[in-house]
Structures are given as C-alpha cells and as structure tokens.
C-alpha cells in the first residue's frame, strides 16, 4: 500500500507542472472539435434570406471560430491544389509550358471580380442550405491563397540540386518516395513562408465574402466580417472595436500556435549548411514537445504503426498503393488526359465568355476601357503614396536592430489584418472630412497594400550587408547621397517585390473600394472596380464579363511590361547575390 502510494506521489512529483498544460491542450482540442461540429450544423442549416448576427460580446468567439475555420479549410484546399498542380507543372515539361502561364494569368486576375457570379451560382446550386454560400467563401479565400504557394512549389521542385536528384535515381526511388523523401522536404521552407503570406492574404477575401451584399440580397455569413458589417449598420462603435480586436487576436494566436511552430519545425529542412543561422524558437512547440500527453500519444501511435507494418510486405505503402502504382505505370497518359480535360474546360469557358461578350454594346466597352485607366491611375497613385512613407520608414526600421525587433511583429500583424474591415470607419471619416470617394478610394486601397511595401523594404534593409554600410560610414557618405548610393540600390529588388504585391492587391481592392455600401446608401467613384461591382449588383453579366476581361488584360499587360522590366533592372543592376 505504501509502495503504491509513493508510486502515485512519484508520478505526480514528476509531472508537477505538466498535467495542467496537458489539460489546456485537451480543452483546446475539445473546443476545436465542438466548433467544427457547430460549423457543420451551420453549413447544413436552412438557408436564410438575411442574416441575424448577435452583437453581444459573448457571441463573438463563436463567430471568430467560424471565420478561422473557413480560412483553414481554404488553406488545406490550397495546399492540396499546390502539391498536385505544382507537381504536375514541374514534372511534365510539356504540360508545364501551358500550366505555368495559366497560373501566372490566374495570379494576375483580380479574382474578386468573379465573386458575385460565383456566389450566385453556388447559392442556386444549393437553394435550401448554406453550403453554397460557405463553399463560395472557401473558394474565394482559396483563390487568394493558392497561386503564390504553387509558384513557390514549382520553383523548389525545379531547383533541387542535381546530386540529390541523381542519388534518388541511382538508388531507385519511385515517384512517391521521391516526392515524400526528397521533393516535399526540399520545398518545405519555401512552402511554409508562402503559406504564411497566403493565409494573411486570405483574410482579405474572407472579410469581403462574409459581409457580401448584392443589391438588396443579403449573402452575409456568420463570422467576424458580418459581425463588423452589422455593427457598422447599427452604428455600434463598441462592437466594431470588439470585432477588430477579435481579428487581431485570431491573427496573433494563429501565428503563435500554428505558424511559429511550423517555421521552427521546418528549419530541419534547410539545405544550406554552415554560416551563422538565426535559430528561431517557439514556446508553443517547446511546450507541445514537452507535453506528456502528446509524447504518450506519439508513442502509442508508433506502436500501432509497427504492429500494422509487418503484414504489409515490401514497400511501406501509403493508403492507396494501387493509385501509386497506376501513376508510376502511365504518367504520360495521365498527364495528357488531364491536360486535355483542362484545356477542354477552358475552351468551353472561353466559348461561353464569347457568347456573353457578344451581347455587350460598344458603349460599355468604351466605358470599361476609359474607367480602367482611371483605376490604373489610382493603383499607381496608391503605390506611390505607399512608397513615399514606407520606404523611409522601412529603412529606418530595418537598419536599426532595436526598432526592427519592436516593429517587425507589429508590421506583420498589420499586413495580415484585412483592410476591408476598416473601410466603414475610414469612409465615415472621409464623409466627415468632405472627401469624395474618387480620391478617398485611393486611401482605401492604400490601407491594405502599403504594408507589403513596408514589409519588403524592412526585409531589404535588414539584408543589406553590414560591410556596405560600414564602407559608407567610413567614407563619410551621408544624407541624401547615402540613400542614393547605398540604401536605395540595396533595397531596390525588395522594393520591386513590394510594388508588385501592393499593386496586385490594389487592383483587387479597387472592386470594393470604388463602390461602397455605407449606411444603406451606395457610394461610387468613377473607375473599373465600380463598373465591376455595379454590374454585379445589377446582375448584368455581359457587362460584368467585359469589365473583368478589361481589368485582367490590363493587369497582365502591366505585369508583363512595367513590372517585368523593374524585375530585370533589379536583377541585373542591383542584385547583391551576383
């Protein structure tokens, strides 16, 4: 008896601190599970004509969970798409020649333009439940997340060092083992960073989607976005602030509990050796690894796997060995058939589009094209204004280790924060100041996109080699000359990346910034974004298609000329790695 007691004490003694950590973990998991069930009920629930949102603070965590799950679901979808599409594009050179430009175009198109059509189509498909709306939201977020992840994956697959590839060939890795043991690990670092960026970009779309109203029809979904929009409608400042707080909390928690641990874990996959590495740490990961519960579960899982392993002869096959073998046998056929299918769908879509465009009167084309250039002006102006303050600020922050320690996380959160949430507040401010939406929309665009510039400039300033700065100091190059000879050329490649991202974001933002529903009245500025939104509101699909097409063409043309030229200059003249 005494022995038993002492044993129990021993156990408790060992685990004095850890059990309550485990408890938190269990509660957290249970909470996630319950939210998931809740979401399922919400999805399959009966479709409502208009949304009812409980503005009490107690209801907010539930709405936050809904928003979070939509974002995560879309991310899983993006990751799956990335791996399949990226693998296909990188492995089959022929298909890649078609798939990569397609991806480039998809990335350039302001996908927000498609939202009205998508929502209407999916709601029509599921008239009696909320699934249509929910799926539309997830797809919209997906379109904001997937492209850059896929590009990163393709790039990684194509830049695997030749010796690692040759070793895999000599030692007869089949495609699955190659993917699991060589290609995915090699791509992990890039994929993780791009995932973080994508997730941040996804909130932008989520907020718009959750608070989407088309004319007099209400397509809002319960979530932070709709909470905010109802709070604005009712003029409840306290609820607005709470929604903003909830959003920030979600971003911070997600960063600490998901991204940070993943980044730390992914360091295992870095390829460069030696040199000084900044080793990142994550309290959550340490805590997770220290948890007795997690360790016990992992041990149990390993046992289970080993017990199941022997019957499976030979290769440690994954869930679908037949599929694995089938893919290995006829990769060509699979690729060709899929490609043909994809091209078929695109051609069919193209024909449909042509039919639609035939109904567009010449006047609409004219309006679309002229307003496109007005919006282009706004996009460039917002990028310019963003640069004007973010370049000096970013340099100041990035060049000072102390400032960057303080501001880096803040800027990260600011960049992740979905600007559309703040639109109502800013519009109220603009109305009070008597600024028209024509100019005000530039400010609205700037709200979301300036952070990209700031973020990149900070990164560039931090990457500036110390010896270049020391040289400038020792030769007494200071002030404007120092900016011109050292700082500006040094950060230019990063600045270009910031510009391209910011301008892309601004095009998307124009759709919601030039056409705003505020306190029951519709404000619009003259521009292509407004054309798209109003055509969607009026369900005028030919005009909508024309406007989107014009915007897509302009964006692609601009990317192919101006931005590509900037990239070339950055690479040839200002690259520090050559």
């Amino acid at each position, binding site marked *: 008896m005494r022995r038993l007691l002492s044993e129990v004490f021993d156990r408790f003694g060992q685990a004095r601190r850890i059990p309550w950590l485990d408890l938190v973990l269990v509660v957290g998991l249970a909470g996630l599970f319950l939210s998931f069930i809740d979401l399922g009920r919400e999805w399959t629930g009966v479709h409502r004509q208009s949304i009812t949102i409980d503005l009490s603070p107690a209801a907010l965590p539930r709405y936050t969970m809904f928003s979070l799950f939509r974002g995560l679901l879309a991310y899983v979808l993006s990751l799956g798409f990335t791996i399949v599409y990226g693998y296909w594009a990188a492995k089959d050179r022929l298909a890649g020649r078609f798939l990569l430009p397609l991806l480039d175009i998809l990335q350039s198109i302001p996908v927000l333009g498609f939202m009205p059509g998508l929502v209407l189509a999916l709601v029509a498909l599921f008239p009696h439940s909320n699934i249509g709306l929910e799926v539309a939201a997830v797809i919209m977020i997906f379109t904001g997340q997937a492209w850059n992840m896929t590009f990163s994956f393709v790039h990684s697959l194509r830049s695997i*060092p030749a*010796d*690692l590839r*040759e*070793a895999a*060939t*000599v*030692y*007869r*890795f*089949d495609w699955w*083992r190659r993917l699991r*043991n*060589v290609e995915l*690990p090699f791509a*992990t670092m890039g994929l993780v960073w791009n995932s973080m960026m994508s997730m941040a970009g996804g909130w932008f779309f989520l907020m718009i989607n959750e608070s989407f109203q088309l004319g007099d029809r209400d397509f809002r979904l319960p979530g932070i976005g709709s909470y905010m929009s109802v709070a604005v409608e009712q003029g409840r400042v306290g609820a607005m602030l709470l929604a903003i707080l909830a959003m920030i909390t979600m971003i911070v928690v997600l960063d600490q509990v998901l991204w940070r641990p993943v980044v730390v874990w992914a360091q*295992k*996959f*870095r*390829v460069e*050796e*030696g040199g000084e590495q900044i080793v990142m740490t994550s309290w959550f990961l340490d805590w997770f690894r220290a948890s007795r519960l997690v360790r016990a579960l992992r041990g149990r899982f390993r046992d289970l796997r080993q017990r199941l*392993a*022997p019957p499976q*002869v*030979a*290769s*440690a096959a994954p869930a679908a060995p037949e599929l694995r073998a089938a893919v290995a046998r006829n990769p060509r056929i699979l690729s060709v058939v899929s490609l043909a299918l994809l091209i078929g769908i695109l051609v069919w879509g193209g024909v449909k589009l042509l039919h639609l465009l035939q109904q567009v009167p010449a006047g609409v084309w004219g309006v679309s094209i002229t307003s496109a250039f007005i919006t282009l002006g706004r996009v460039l102006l917002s990028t310019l204004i963003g640069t004007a303050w973010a370049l000096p600020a970013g340099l100041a922050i990035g060049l000072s280790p102390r400032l960057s320690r303080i501001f880096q996380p803040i800027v990260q959160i600011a960049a992740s924060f979905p600007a559309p949430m703040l639109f109502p507040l800013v519009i109220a401010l603009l109305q009070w100041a008597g600024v028209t939406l024509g100019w005000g929309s530039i400010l609205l665009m700037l709200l979301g996109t300036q952070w990209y510039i700031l973020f990149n400039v900070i990164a560039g300033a931090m990457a500036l080699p110390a010896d270049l700065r020391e040289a400038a100091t020792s030769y007494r190059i200071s002030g404007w000359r120092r900016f011109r000879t050292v700082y500006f050329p040094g950060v230019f490649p990063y600045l270009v990346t910031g510009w391209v991202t910011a301008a892309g974001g601004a095009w998307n933002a124009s759709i919601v910034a030039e056409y705003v529903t505020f306190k029951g009245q519709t404000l619009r500025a003259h521009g292509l974004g407004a054309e798209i939104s109003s055509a969607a509101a009026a369900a005028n699909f030919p005009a909508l298609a024309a406007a989107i097409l014009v915007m897509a063409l302009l964006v692609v043309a601009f990317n192919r000329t101006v931005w590509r030229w900037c990239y070339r200059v950055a690479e*040839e*003249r200002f690259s520090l790695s050559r």
Partner: protein
Amino acid sequence: MSVPATARRKRTPDAREILCEARHISHDFTLPNGKPLRVLEDISVAVARDEVVALLGPSGSGKSTVLRILAGLIKPSQGEVLYKGQPLTGLNPGVAIVFQSFALYPWMTVRQNVQVVLEARGVQPAHAADRAERTIGRVGLGGFEDAYPRELSGGMKQRVGMARALVVDPEILFMDEPFSQVDALTAESLRAEVLDIWGAKERNPSSIVMVSHDIREVAFMANRIVVLGGNNPARVRTVVQNDLERPRDYQSPQCVALIDTLYSVITGSELPDVAPAAADREAGFIEPLPNVSPGEIVGLLEHLDTRGGKGDVFRIASQTNNEFGQVITLVKAAEMLNFVDTPKSAVLLEPEGRRFVKASPEQRKRIWREQLLKLSLFREVADVLRKQRGRPIDKDFVLETIVMRMPQEDYEKVFLTFIAWARFGELVSYDEAPGTISLYQRRRSNQVTPDAQSPGE
C-alpha cells in the same frame, strides 16, 4: 593500416571476367542555342572483376560524364554500354555511386539516409534497419546513427555516402571524386579504408570505378588508370596498368616512377610541344580562349619570375595550392600570349613575359594589348570597331563570331573570357545591360592616348 585481405588477393589477368563495359561511346551536350557540343569522343572502358579502375584527367575532361554513362544515368549519344555482356537499358543494376558532394538528404539522419535506399528497393523496414545499422558500423560511423548530416565533418559525411552505397550490396562501387571535398589527412585514411572494404574478397563490392584528378591518389588506389584528356571532346589518351604490390607506399621508387609517368602523359597530351603552324592561324582559325582571368596569368608570370623564370606544371600546382588541370589551362593561356614556353612539363618565362613582369602598370596594359592583337578573334573585333568609328557593336556580333569559328566551345564562357582579356588590355569597353562593345576610351583629361584609337599599330 592493415590490408592483409588485399595482399592475399591473387588475380589471373587472362581469366578476367568483364563486369561492365563502355564500347566506343561518344556524347554530345546541347548548348543553350540548340547546337550540340561534343564532350566525349570514342571512349572505351572495361571494368573487370576484382579491380580498381581510375578515370584520371584534368577538370572538364568528361570523367564524371563517363562515370554517369556507365551507371546508366546518362544515355550516350553513340556507342553502347554492356553490363555482364548485355546491353544496358536504364540504370546499371550492379552499381551504387558515392558522390563528390556527398548528396546526402539534409533532412534525414545518418540512419534514415542509409535506410531509405533499402526501403526504396522494397526491403522490409525491420530488416532494412538492421542492415543499415550494420553498414553504418562497417564504415566506422557507429554512434552517429541519429546525427544529421549538417552536424558531421566532410570526411564523416563521405562515410555516410559510402554506407549508403555499400548497404545495397553493389557489385561495382562508383566513386566520383570521392575525397576532393575532404581534408587531406582524412582523405588519406578513407582511401585505405575503401581498399580494405574492397579487399574483403568474400563480399561486394567486387570492383571499384573511381574518378579523380589526383595523380597520387590513383597511383595509390588503382589497378588500371584510364587517362582522359582534351577538352570538348575528351578522348582516352592512354591506359596505364598499375600492378604494384599492395599495400602501396607513395615513397617507393616504383610508385614515384609511376607518378612521373602519369605526369608526363598528361602534360604531353595537354601541352603539346609543337604549336600549330602560323599558316593554320590565317585560314579562319580562331584560338579557343582558355577560361582563365588575366589576374591569374599575371600571377603565374610573377610566380615564375620570382623562381628564376623556370617552373614545372606540377611543382607550380603544389606551390600555389591549385589543381594541376587548372595550372595546365593557365599555362596554355600564357603560352597563347607568348609569355611562356612549355618544353615537356617545364614552363619557361619568355622574353616577352619577362618584359611584361618588369613593366609599369601602364606599359603592362600596352604589352598585353599587343599580344592580344596577335590573336585573330581580338584582331577581328578591333578591326570592326575601328571601322565603326566610335559607334558600339552588339555583343551578339562577337558571340556569333565565336559560335561560327569555334563551334566546339561553350560560347558564353569564351565570350566572358574575351571580355575579361580585352578589358584588361584596355582594348574595348563592354556595357553589360544593353550588351554593347565599344573601343576603349580614356576619360582622363590630362592625357590623350593615341593608343586607344589605334591599338598596337
């Protein structure tokens, strides 16, 4: 170092069983402009049971390509590869490769790196773990099973590379410059261990094929040394049989003699004493420019000057801590500019070279330029530029000339060398971004040099 197994080994040369063989293979790479570049010409190599074959040659002589063709990683443009008498399709079934850069997967531990190749062959995980552990022990890495490659030194990494190759029990072990990224002392012990592993007669690998640029290394390790030489395409210069008793001693007279023989074979083929006749130079012939920088050539001349104007390729290589293949290229370049002469493997400073070393920086530029203008490529470009009267010409013009007249060369590399040499001689200016070449103009106001206008006349 104990090599009893090796010493016991008795070979009967006439009853040799050929394991793997390349017959008259030639290989072309495709240049970025779509034209083929022949890198190997008519190469035949056979690997018999129980022998160590070395492919020796300076860098760029296609040794590694031959190895990859034998392994089935690359399909030769012409000729065939046989494995045990059968034509090879796909990978060579009896081969495992140890890579120069180790090619370990950085995200896997030592154990996982070794085990994964067994699992790829369908060995059951439990069995694979067992075999992996034994092999890791065999290469002397016991205790390091759970280390990641980044935690290991170069020598230990290469041991992992060897364990990974040995674990699949290959009949022939291929090693691609296995010790060139390992420090000298570690390399020494690895060589002996590789021979020990090979010498254990009852076990695979039965034979080893190694690629090396280190003459002493191949003299120590190989039974047969295939000397490759020439650049684009490379050919087999000679095959040297090495029947020295094992374990071998670098200092033994026979070994020293063998090393000397290999030295003279390589210099003889890389630096022929008879220069191409002047008549050849006229008929559209453009000298291929060796890919070395002017600074290196100046360094070589200074080096020779401080040693009485005389040197030897291999002594220079060891004194300057350079690979001998690189020194040979360097000497070739200096010879093209008439700065040195190369009777046998000796390198002598010519009067022109001596004048260059003694000259002031200004005069050096002029001497360099004079020598450049004796080379037809530089002369032609300078002529065209002079006819243009100060207007720049496009980079493509020079590229085109190189492609047309030196179809066997990597034109981008030749072009970069051309620019570097011409800039050093103040012959032309090159603006990278638009890619234009113009005659060099001095910007100094106090001194107008007529040279720049009419160089070398």
